[in-house]
């Protein structure tokens, strides 16, 4: 029988779970027959496990000191930046030489209600904003307070290990079931999927 070529770079992809369905199947079948690839696979897994288990390098004393300094009391937060410029609610001081009355400077003598410096308008906007804020706060408080009461009963955490063993013990007796799946389920709860999908 002609053996396929060795796995080479695909060993790393196999360990990382990056091979597709068919490629993984072929790689596993090859590994079962090829001692050198099997040894390479085990070495790759050992290295990866060591890297995963290795402690993080200690931070330098200077960095530690700087990080600690960050936690000490400091200046207040800078003012928030607004995404859109809003019409100021507090009237700005009139420019020198500009009349301080609320009278309109329009030629027709009518009040200019859109002018930001208008006192009456500002007051109305203030009251409206305050009322809207109070109503909003009231609604939010009522919504939070109106949450459904929590389901009564003792908090229960299902016993994962016992449940796995019990499931395996009762289903491994099924004819045509695979003993390997039962053993894997009983030993460590079955096969769990890595975070990344393998491109199926």
């Amino acid at each position, binding site marked *: 029988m002609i053996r396929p070529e060795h796995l080479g770079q695909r060993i790393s992809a196999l360990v990382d779970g990056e091979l597709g369905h068919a490629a993984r199947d072929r790689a596993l079948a090859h590994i079962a027959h090829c001692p050198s690839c099997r040894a390479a696979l085990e070495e790759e*897994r050992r290295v990866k496990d060591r890297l995963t288990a290795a402690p993080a390098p200690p931070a330098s004393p200077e960095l530690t000191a700087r990080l600690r300094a960050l936690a000490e009391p400091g200046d207040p937060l800078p003012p928030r930046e607004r995404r859109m410029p809003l019409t100021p609610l507090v009237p700005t001081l009139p420019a020198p030489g500009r009349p301080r009355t609320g009278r309109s400077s329009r030629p027709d003598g009518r009040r200019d209600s859109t002018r930001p410096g208008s006192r009456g308008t500002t007051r109305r906007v203030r009251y409206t904003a305050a009322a809207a804020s109070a109503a909003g706060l009231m609604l939010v408080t009522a919504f939070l307070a*109106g949450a459904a009461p929590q389901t009564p009963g003792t908090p229960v955490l*299902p016993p994962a290990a016992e449940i796995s063993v019990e499931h395996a013990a009762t289903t491994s007796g099924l004819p045509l079931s695979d003993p390997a799946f039962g053993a*894997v389920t009983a030993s460590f709860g079955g*096969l769990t999927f890595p975070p990344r999908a393998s491109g199926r």
Partner: protein
Amino acid sequence: MSRPVLGGGRVGVAGLLAPVALLALLAGSAAGSAPTARPASWGEGAPNDARALLLLGRATQAPATVAYHGVQFVSAWSDTGSTSLVVEVDHRPGHGTTVRSNSTTQAPAADTFLPADGVAPSVIGGSNALERLAGNYTVVLAGRRTVSGRPADLVEARWPGNHRPAARFWLDAATGLVLRREVYDNQGRTTRASAFVEIVVGRASSTQHLPPAMPDAWSDEVDYSDRAAMTSKGWHCPDELPGALDLVDARRGEADGAPILHLSYTDGLATVSLFEQRGRLDADNLDGYQLRDQGGQAVYVRDGMPQRVVWSAHGTVFTLVADAPASTVEDVVAALPHEPIEDEGGWHRLGRGFERVASWFNPFG
């Protein structure tokens, strides 16, 4: 590792007689008229193939008489991921099966011994399971193949509706051992596969050391009258679940001093365990689960093989452990009790909130 040995297997007299008895039970219809009975909701299927049933019956008996050891891979797939494991399997008839796996990035190394007499509950095992398989699926012989250098008969169990394969078994022509298995969902996608890539038939490994045995199933069996009494006290004990899953075993255990009920269901191919405990789910301390909308219900899911689904409703915590297609699991979850995710609506909640806030300021409340 040794190379595969051709032939060398033995099948005892009992192993030959039992399949014949099974055949009489299961395939009388296959040789002649009507197909084996199956739930009406699954529709009518093609008749089972008598030769395929004979081979499956022989396969169920083979581990009782045939020793073997070898290297096997096991793989599982779902919509969210996949994983594989290579294990060494060593089987001794009458003693049990040792399964050894090396550590991987997803699972630690493990040695497990499955005792021959410790993992076969009388109800779920034996001919009942084959009867269910033949009743719920159409079993046919699909030809001759080769697995790990050994000639094998390929037997298919097909979905009754669309006649796609639900499972394929490659059965060793010489001994009847299952050399390769593949299980598919009803869209034809492989969900689980295992196969020997190296096998020596006729003798077990020379290793004498046995790892710790897998614990037995809980000994407190719950019979029909017990179940009726438990149902009257609020436990949920359905006789069947969607997907033609029949209740085949019920047991009681204990967790943290409180009772836990275990109900086992199977259709002859898929298996589902339903565990029930009194209380409400401590979701904050669940490890490895994701909150998900499954079949319109908010449940905590842990993908893998088996898949796990956990939720609580009406004072009971339900844990589902399933070796079954995802669509079946969704149907099963939907058929069990749930509480509404949201309450009666935003206005009702606001009204209740205003009442509650008012009561805070009411000196007479």
